[in-house]
């Protein structure tokens, strides 16, 4: 996009006069952008700065000042010593719980949703669209309406309070958006490929594994980004469907920071907050445009 813009600039078929870099309009434009950029960057900056200060410095100084004496003690404490209730092994427990929840949830939800999307795109059977419509509508139903009956279902299955119960819940609630994503992608692939594979005698699974999956790796990456950030950031399901020992990181973070006992250690709290935000942040900055595509996929209705 940027390249084409540059090219048209050079040919000069629009933009009446050569650009002056400092004009009133440009000052307004960049000024506004920079003001907004400060608003968006401020919390990240404050988090980092606070987490590197000692408590005495925080009490005396101001939150925007860079640390005079840099200390990593708050990070160590947040990771391995901070207390929630009786447990004092820090956020590390929550981190590993989140990883244990994340991996199967992402894998299972993507496998199921990609097959659903494939069936809807290429093997539409009678009534399939009805279920799909319900599924898409379901994405808008407030979770609160469904959470309690799901508790009962999980309890009957013996999964309530376990990580696998939560995996199932994530699979269920990730299904509408992921199915939509895959269905739209598979529909956009040339039908000739599908027909050719069928003529060659490939069946439902044959076409899926030999043609569809290899051709759709980008969309699998998009789905992964979507699910990893979504599941990592989840709080509601974590707090409802797991026990304190297997609470995901977000729930544990909230318990550490908002615990009413003891003296508040703001530097430890901020270190813990960054630690929890780190996984999605890394994914965001590494994945770049694919992340935008993932979130836009949710918005573009097929």
């Amino acid at each position, binding site marked *: 996009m940027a390249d084409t813009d540059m090219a048209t600039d050079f040919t000069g078929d*629009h933009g009446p006069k050569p650009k002056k870099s400092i004009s009133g309009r440009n000052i307004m*434009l960049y000024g*506004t*952008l920079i003001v*907004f*950029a400060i608003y*968006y960057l401020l*919390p990240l900056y*404050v*988090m980092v700065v*606070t987490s590197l200060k000692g408590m005495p410095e925080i*009490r005396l100084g*101001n*939150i*925007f000042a860079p640390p005079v004496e840099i200390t990593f003690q708050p990070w160590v404490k947040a990771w391995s010593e901070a207390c929630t209730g009786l447990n004092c092994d820090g956020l590390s427990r929550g981190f590993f719980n989140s990883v244990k929840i994340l991996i199967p949830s992402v894998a299972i939800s993507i496998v199921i949703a990609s*097959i*659903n999307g494939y069936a*809807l795109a290429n*093997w539409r*059977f009678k009534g*399939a669209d009805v*279920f*799909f419509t*319900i*599924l898409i509508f*379901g994405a808008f139903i407030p*979770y*609160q*309406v469904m*959470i*309690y*009956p*799901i508790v009962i*279902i999980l309890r009957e299955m013996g999964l309530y309070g376990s990580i696998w119960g939560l995996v199932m819940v994530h699979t269920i609630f990730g299904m509408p958006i992921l*199915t939509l994503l895959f269905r739209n992608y598979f529909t956009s692939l040339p039908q000739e490929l599908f027909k050719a594979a069928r003529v060659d005698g490939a069946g*439902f*699974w044959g076409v899926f594994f030999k043609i569809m999956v290899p051709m759709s790796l980008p969309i699998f990456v998009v789905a992964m980004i979507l699910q990893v950030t979504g599941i990592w*950031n*989840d*709080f*509601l399901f974590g707090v*409802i469907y797991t026990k304190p020992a297997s609470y995901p990181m*977000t729930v544990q973070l*909230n318990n550490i920071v*908002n615990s009413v006992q003891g003296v508040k250690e*703001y530097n430890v*709290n901020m270190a813990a*907050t960054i630690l929890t*935000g780190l996984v*999605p*942040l890394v*994914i*965001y*900055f590494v994945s770049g445009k694919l*992340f935008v595509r993932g979130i*836009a996929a*949710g*918005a*573009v*209705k097929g």
Partner: protein
Amino acid sequence: MDTYKRPSQLFRNMSAKIASIPMVMTALVIFVGCTVWTITYSFTGSRLLPKLKWVGMKQYDRLFDTNRWVISIDNIIIYGICSLILSLTIGFILAALLDRKIRFENTFRSIFLYPFALSFIVTGLVWQWILNPQFGIQHVVREAGFLSFSFAPLQSNEYVIFGVLIAGIWQGSGLIMALMLAGLRGIDEDIWKATRIDGIPLWKTYIVVIIPMMRPVFVTALVLIASGIVRVYDLIVAQTNGGPGISSEVPAKYVYDKMFLSQNLGQGFAASTVMLLTVLVILIPWAYLEFGGRKQNG
């Protein structure tokens, strides 16, 4: 042959049907089944355990007599309206600015969008810290010499919801910016040229030509924001936990607290049913417009 043909109709496409079982089960058991279950039990006097002891509309009467619920509704309305207006405005302005062929576009875009990758818990906790009256913005401004400066929304019964709003906008407006930018990029270069030749001022071009052309993007953004608003829960839990007192309570938190903390299932069911109704009131006209419009086109 006859006996062979009949089952073949049912078993045709068998693999696809088997593969769709998870989807069918989710749609029927969870989305339809669980919703109907909750609505049904909202008419019962269930407390600790769900029981089919009918009490008619009593739960709803009690719900709207509860101060906390009324405050929750007020809060979500204020939060919702402000958040809609601000997200759409900020999102559009940022997208329009980024679309002006500027330098460092990618950097700015990354900065505006990164909060969206963070959870509401992280968002709430950071802003709780920045808005902390003892150490945060208020303290810094007072230290700079403005001793009477007061900015402590999270400690004020009246303004707490606006403190939450600052955080909510910070987290979510980048998404709207991204959607709007995609919409702006889809607008034909010729339209810009035409308005330039006609000498229409830039601001007028946006309002009269561009925004009407971006109607579908606005509608999508609207639906996204609206469905997010009804769900506001984590942000409140992290930033204020409903406080001070009950001034920043929201419906989703009421439901959770009634179901899982105060063993008053009936109230939780009734409250969540009201939430569902609210969503349907938004969703049905939208779906009607969306699909009705499509039929006309096709």
